[in-house]
């Protein structure tokens, strides 16, 4: 049964929004992923993923305050919805189950 369809990058974004808890908007999410995972994230890729996740109902967004460096443009903060939480729980569970079933032998083989 495929309850939740989440891609690899989507999962990362969801988790990062969770990590940033309350301070997750475009720039911070980008910085966080780049800092933690040591991979380049383009604004385009990030934005499309964020919007897609929002559309799927895993994230919700609220307009926030603005700063001078943003030229007066508001920040758009993202938070995980309950549905989103269930989704990452689900992926984690399925991963764990898979890990459990993996024979030790396979991992020990070089």
């Amino acid at each position, binding site marked *: 049964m495929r309850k939740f369809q989440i891609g690899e990058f989507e999962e990362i974004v969801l988790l990062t929004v969770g990590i940033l808890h309350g301070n997750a908007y*475009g720039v911070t999410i980008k910085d966080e992923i780049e800092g933690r995972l040591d991979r380049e994230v*383009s*604004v*385009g890729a990030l*934005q*499309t993923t964020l919007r897609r996740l929002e559309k799927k109902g895993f994230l919700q967004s609220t*307009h926030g305050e603005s700063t001078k460096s943003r030229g007066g443009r*508001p920040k758009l903060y993202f938070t995980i919805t309950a549905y989103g939480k269930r989704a990452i729980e689900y992926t984690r569970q399925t991963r764990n189950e898979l890990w459990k079933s993996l024979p030790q032998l396979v991992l020990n083989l070089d």
Partner: protein
Amino acid sequence: MPPPKLPLKLLKWFCKPDYHLDIEGDLLELYDHRKKTLGDKKAKFLLIKDVLLLFRPGIVRSFTTSQKLNHIAMLRHNFILTFRSFKRYKTSFLINIIGLSTGLASALLIYLWINDELNVDKFHDKDGQIYQIMQNFDTPNGIVTRNYTPAHLAKALLKEIPEVEFATSTNTVYQSNWAKGIVSSEGIFMDAKGILADEDYFSVFSYNLIRGNKDLVLEDKNSIVISERLAKKLFKPTENIIGKTLEWKNENLRSIFQVSGIFENTPLNSTVQFDFIINYNVLLDNNSESRDWNSDHAYTYLVLKEGTDTERFNEKIAGFLGSKHPQREKCSLFVQQYSKRYLYGKYENGVPVGGRIMYVRLFFAIALFILLIACINFMNLSTAQASRKMKAIGIKKAIGINRGALIIQFLGESTLMAILSLAVALLIVVLLLPQFNIITEKHLHLNPDIPDTLSIVGIVLVTGIISGIYPAFYLSGFNPATVLKGKFGTAFNELLVRRVLVIFQLTLSAVFIVGFLVIYKQIELTQTKNLGYDQDNVITFQRQGEIDVNGFEVFLSELKNTPGVVNASTIAGNIMKQINLNAGYSWQGSTPEDGEIVFPSPEVNYNFIETLGIELKEGRSFSHEYSNEFSKLVINEAAAKMIGFKDPIGKYVKRNQREMQIIGVVKNFHYTSLHESIRPVFFRYGPNGRTVMVKIKNGAEETTIENLKEIYEKFHPNYPFEFTFLDEDYQMLYDSENKVSALSKYFAGLAILISCLGLFGLASFTTERRIKEIGIRKIMGSNAFDIVRLLTGNFTKTIIISIVISLPASYLLAKNWLDSFAYRIDLEWWYFAGAGILVLFIAWITVGLQTIKAARVNPVNCLKDE
């Protein structure tokens, strides 16, 4: 340093509006941060890269209008508005509809004509590969190009040159007597005109055979292929005609032929029209001269293999005739695509330089310009009346209509106008087409088929768009705030544009008038110029059938004794169309090259020079009283000048080694059209010419012709007496000029009419706008004359500018056209002045009618309201 604007603008353009603000915020924040850590350049680069990478499906907005408009309601709304404005402003509606419909009607007529012209001879399946052999002769006046060739050329080319796929020869007009005569079968007699052609004829040309095999129908010398029309007339019942026999006789032969095939009547757009075809060998068998490589008795048509390079092919065949006969070394051959000959049938220095295509282009330009003049009327009237629409546009814009929708509305209005005009134009075309067909000698008709309909729809749409495009952009560009405030000043630019457009119209009209005048005067010159001979009351006809040599003498003397006949003579060939051309003349002091020059040298009977009234300058003409006239020559002044003898009478000229004595010199006369200059002519004596020319006493034409008919029928039983007047034959030489003259009259008139309509509309509108001013002026003491002067003053300036512009344009055009005549009128100043004054006068009347009406208005009436 502030962030670069362009990438952000780009983002704004393609990004979904909902997403735009915060994404831009993120980008700006990133830019700010990067600027501090990485430096300006790098930050800028990364910003651009980010924006470009944002161009992906999740972010890019949809480019269709975000809100669905109710298109049908909009369309209906526009329709209603358009019809209301038509109803309300009847004058401008009428002006537009009259202008556009006459413009469209003339464009449609010209379209039909051009289409027909362009398709002449194009119906053959192998059109692109069919070529006609042309021949260049060296003459003292440069190279002369002719289409006739030796009869054996077709077969020789087919055998010797691999690129030739099929080749056929047909008789030339010079031998048309061979293929003209009486066909009879089962007691039915018919006059019929046909051609003689080689076996390959139906492989080259696509005249459809209904019965018979195209490879075999002309195999046999006794076969005849007849047209459907002839078959229906000759045979009853019309089944099983193949194999039946018919008798055919003319002056040259009388023979029984067997029908071997039937072809569909030749299409109207074929330059060659015939009712039967017989084998070309009939001519070769009966006319020994035609078998000679040094005589031209055939047109030669080839089908070249696909992909043949005609340039290289021409190089190959250029000297072909020289290799067959030593006397033809100066004659070089080349090929021209058969279907192109109709439009490109004029040659200079041995290469085609145009011909009828000139008239096709001319009329295309005329159609375009007349339509443009009509379009300009629409533009001018709708921009001049902008103030009427101002408020509506202002309110619409304030409510939030976008400019595109307004533009569509105005374009729709003009297109609707064009469509309405089309309905009127079609009616005009249907009414005028019979008359137009008479003038152009065509069989044009409106076809409801797809290509024609598409072209007509195309013409109408283009007309609608051209006339609507300027008003649409102009009217939709107003600033709603100023317009609604009631401030409406006419911009200087707009006045200028309108004025330029009027100048354009009037200039064209003036050019058309000059064009018409020049054509008319040149045609008049061709009618009135002293040609050096008298063509009035001269009738020509052909002797038919077999005639013994003495028969000529008896026949001529009987003609001369007929009451009412002034003089009579005969000539071989035809003075207007085909004078015999001969080379091989030499004289004291002539070069070997001169011997190869081809001169017109007609064989004429006694009294020929007198019958035509050609003036004798020195010596005498051929006469009974002297013996051995066969070795005498009468030459024209041009010939005398070329030979260069001081006193030519009594001197000798050699023709093919035979001494011939010059006995007379006649004044130069124009035996062909004025397009060509006078060439040296050598008259020879020959009693057996078949073209009879009879000069009739003035006033006794009818009875004399009756008498001549009796004599003719006595000598030529079974042949109808068919004659033409020489002056009519002469008119035929100016066939296309006469047509152009007739048509240019109508089109010049139309151009003037349509421009004046526009002027009338503008004048009535400006006076209407200034009616209060006029009222006040009158109260203050202006008289009617002052007001007329005030109102017409502006127009007068415009008119004069157009006339000045039209002068050089019309001069160049007229000069260009006249250059095709060797004898032409001088361009007199008054053609231009006359045209200018005419335009000025007509325009004044048009404007004056309006202004006088306005000037006579009672000030009370125009000032009382408000």
